[in-house]
Structure formats: structure tokens, C-alpha cells
């Protein structure tokens, strides 16, 4: 049981909310677009990952419990 993150690269335009709010889960490429650092989120970073997804103005991040 854990949370996995999926990014829709086509939607990301580089607002950067995710890597500011959950830097253990999300990183940035050289343009400032989102990269996924860990696909399976460790429990201690779950809340941050949820907040990051909820703050993405492009709705580009989806979380799923597996």
C-alpha cells in the first residue's frame, strides 16, 4: 500500500508549485518543468505530495493509492 504519482507532461507549463511544496517528490528540469523524483511516495512525504498536486494550476499531477 502506498501512493504513486503520475505527471501529465503535456499539461505541465512550469509553474513550479510541486517542487516547491514537495521537494522530496518532485524536481525540475532545466526549463523549470516538473520531473518525478520518486514514483512511489514514502509515507512521510504523502501529505506534501497531496498538497503539491492540489496546488498545480494545470491539474497535471495525479496521485493514486495502490
Amino acid at each position, binding site marked *: 500500500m502506498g501512493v504513486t504519482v503520475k505527471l501529465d507532461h503535456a499539461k505541465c*507549463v*512550469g*509553474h*513550479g508549485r510541486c*517542487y*516547491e511544496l514537495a521537494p522530496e517528490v518532485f524536481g*525540475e528540469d*532545466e*526549463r*523549470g*518543468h516538473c520531473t518525478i523524483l520518486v514514483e512511489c511516495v514514502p509515507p512521510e512525504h504523502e501529505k506534501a505530495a497531496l*498538497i503539491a498536486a*492540489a*496546488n*498545480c*494550476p*494545470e*491539474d497535471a499531477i495525479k496521485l493514486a493509492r495502490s
Partner: protein
Amino acid sequence: MEQKENPCPHTGVLNIIDPEYTAHPQPAYARVLANHRVAKSIAMHSPILSRYEDVVFALRHPEIFSSEMDMQVLLGTKRPMIPQQIDPPRQTRYRKILDLRFSRPRMQALEPELRRHAQQLIDGFVERGECEFDQEFAVPLPCAAFLTLMGLPQEELDLFLELKNGIIRPPVDPMDMIAATEFRMKTGERIYAYFEKAIADRRARPQDDMVTYLTTVDFDGRPLSDEEILDICYLLLLGGLDTVTATLGCSMAYLASNPEQRRKLVAKPELIPNAVEELLRWETPVSLVPRVLKQNVTIGDVELREGALVNILLGAANVDPAEFPDAMNVDFERENNRHISFGAGAHRCLGSHLARMELRAALEEWHKRIPEYQIKPGAVPNVSPGIREQLYLPLVWSA
């Protein structure tokens, strides 16, 4: 033009230049959201979109809501500004080379110098017990950082401000559109001429700055032309010298008028980054952006026709209760905040990482030194429409 209620409850006409509206637009946004899926601007009765859902749809569909419009009358430009007035996919190619220069790590590198500058500015007036916030803090702080980034001489700041203001707020009678257009076109000529010289200079003597970068960057296997570089610089000048100034002023006017909210930040400075986001949502300093329709589109039961100018009211979308629970409450601990003060879709503000760094650093440095302050009693705020700059914001405190 006289209109008692704003927006008019019958026609849905929103008076976007009414001083009461420009100072405190949120109640009017709420009335538009509640009553008019498509409102109308007092200027030519052009349609206004305000719901969060409609606004992000428009911003994410440039094939319908295009940015390619002739703005010479409003901007003094001879050609579209790059990349703001160009649609994807061409716009995306320019963004690829520009995003690299406006990434978060590059902006963070400017932070120590910006903080030092903020401290110096505060040193200059703290013992006086008052300042005019716009001219003494909100204008000089972000403008100096911008000039550093661009590699433009600091001692020419007044010239750049004159050029920028000559486009955004030409010093003529606001109702005299002909005089305004003439002033803008003359100012536009001066902007092109300045940067033509700067480009030639950097080609001859390269430096570590933006203009040099633009003269040397590989753009899909070729260099940028002088015209392309000019059209980028024109945009950077207008965007870089105005928006953070406006946001600082709106944020401080709010904090000065709401002491219980301000004291939360003073007691818990770690709230400042989140408070910056909430103030961006609430104030939405760039309150409205234009688009032009490339095809007919139906919003609700209103059909909008190809060729129509559409006003995208970012400020209203940011207080839409369908997106933001308790939308009319300013909550510095709001956890879910998908505000679109930097826009959305392909044209997301190029300078958003710079703006966030500057706003956080400025509010932190200010409140360390001047935690208690208020707007000078009796002062009448003067907030410009469109980009909501607090043109006159006198603050007082106990020295």
C-alpha cells in the same frame, strides 16, 4: 458612463476603470460570478469571462482564444511582442530558450543581492516613521534586480521607467485615446532604438547578461534575428518593470489595512511563502488579460463570434467559490490554492519564479524591521486599472 452599481445588475456591464473597483475589485468579482456567466466590459462592451472553469479553458486553448492580436494602439509596438503575442506551437519554441534563463535556480542566485537592497531601502526611511511605499520601495527594489538580470545600467533606471510608463500609463488625459496612441508610438520608437543600440553593443562586446544571451543562443539551428531580439526585449521591459511593483503595493496595502492578518506573519514568518500565494490570489495584480477569438465558441448560452476581443478576468476566477472554498476569505494557511495570478497554459508568466523570490524576500525583510504600520490617515489610495499598481501608498509607523 455613470453607473451606480458595478457591475450593472441588468446589463452585466463592468466598469473596470471605476476607482472604487480598481482599489477593491473583489466584491464586484463576486457579483459578476454570481450573476453573469459572460459579463461585458465598459470599453466597447467586449465580453468578459470570469468563472475559474471558463478562464482556464480559455487560457489552455490558444487555438480558440488566441494571443495574436494587433496591439499597436495599446503597446506602441510595430510587431508582436515575443513570446506573449504569439500562439503555440511557434510560441513554445521561444519559451524553450527563455525558460532556461528564468528558472528557479537562476532567480535564487539573485536573492542575496535583492535582500541587501531591500535592507538599504528600509535603512533610508525607517527612522523617518513614514514612506511613500510605491516610489521608495515597490519601484526601486524589483527594477534594480531586473536591470541586473538584463545587464542594463542601473543609472539608467529612470529612463527605463519613463519608457515603460509611457506605454502602460501614458501621461495624457485618460479619455483621449488619440493622444495616448501617439504617445505610445513615440515611446515605442525610443524602446526599439535603445535596444537596437544595446544589441549592436553586445554583439561587439559580449557580457554575461540577457541581451548577450539572446544574440548568441541557438534557436532551432540558427541565431535569433535582431527583430526577434527586439520583440523579446520590448516584452521583458514592460513585464519586468511593472508587475512585481504592482504586487508589492497591493500586498502591502492589504497588510497595512488588516493588522490582525499582518500580525500572523510577524509572529510566524514561515507563513510568508504561503501568504504570498494567498495575496496573489486575493489581489490578482494583473487582473485582466486579452484574447481574440479564432473561431466561434459558446460559453454557457452565449455565442461569441470569431474575431471578437475577449477579456479574461483572472481576478474574478481567483475568487470563484466553485474552485476556492471560502473564496472571499483571505487565509494565509490555505492549503489548496491553484490561483492563476501568473496565468495558466502556454503563456504562464515567464517571470513567475523571479516574482515569487522577490515577493517573499521583500515581505520578510520589511516585517523584520517594520512589523507595525498603517496607511497614513486621510490618504486616498490611487490604484491603476488593468495592472493594479498602488501609485500612491503612504505608510506610517512609530519610529
